[in-house]
């Protein structure tokens, strides 16, 4: 597999990524990750402290949530 062909799913949308990219890179690239944001990678919470050390893998599924008015 070449890096250019790899994608991850972020909040239901497919996004290509480059091999070696971390979750922190991804968040930064997408303009996400402000305070109050949480990330789940493949249905497991990924603490912000691990964003820098977590490499993206093809077909990874990310949910990026933040508080909104509700309830």
């Amino acid at each position, binding site marked *: 597999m070449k890096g250019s062909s790899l994608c991850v799913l972020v909040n239901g949308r497919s996004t290509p990524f480059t091999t070696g990219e971390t979750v922190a890179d991804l968040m930064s690239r997408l303009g996400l990750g402000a305070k109050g944001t949480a990330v*789940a990678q493949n249905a497991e919470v990924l603490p912000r402290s691990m964003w820098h050390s977590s490499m993206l893998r093809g077909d990874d599924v990310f949910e990026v949530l933040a508080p*909104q*008015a509700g309830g």
Partner: protein
Amino acid sequence: MGQATTDDDFTIAGKSFQSRLLLGTGGISNLDILESVIKVAGPSLVTVAMRRVSPDQQSSFFQIIERQNVPILPNTAGCFTASEAVLTAKMAREALSTDWIKLEVIADEQSLLPDPFELLKAAEELVDDGFRVLAYTNDDPVLASRLEGVGCSAVMPLGAPIGTGLGILNPYNIELIVANSGVPVILDAGIGTPSDAVQALELGCDAVLVATAITRAQNPVGMAEAFSLGVRSGVAAFRAGRVPKLNNALASSPMEGRLEISHSPHQQKS
């Protein structure tokens, strides 16, 4: 009442709160109004939902909430299964640095009623994982008791389905929940107007959660004030002990010592 309190305070999971009003933030038309609503309502907790972010929207709501200095209570609104709710709760904990969660697991998108089975399952998992679970539930006293049994920190029975404003459809059940509960009972959903909130507290609930009735009122800020006063009224009333309902009238002015009209003989002569 759900739990022993001193003065006006009440306690959830060991934490003391003064206001009997919890505020839901959904349904507000604009964030400036929300800010005023929070200031005026003075809630003990403010609920938020967890939703997917996009770059543009992510900041303003959270900033407003944060600068109110009110504890945030994230919810799992919109979750249909225990696993969705558990993951949402964990993400909320990560995002907001709180292990408090208003647990909501609904059965379908039409009724928005709680699913007793998924709810209890999620509650159990979250309690085991260290969460303080405040469980949104229907008005079934048995389910409320089971939720307490698995370690929920509060039960939040509905008065009526979410957003209907129908008030407390079954006060009998709410009273039964209160009578049997060892944890705080917070009436959630269905409240349409302050008298509903006052009634909830008079029935012995420890607090109420209000969203729609404030955020969608014609004047949300004015309504926030009305609810803020109402919950203070309700808790004071519960403590002061209402008069019994009587089937027969009872005079509030003494019936003795009333005047009698006797026309004098002098007048009758004329």
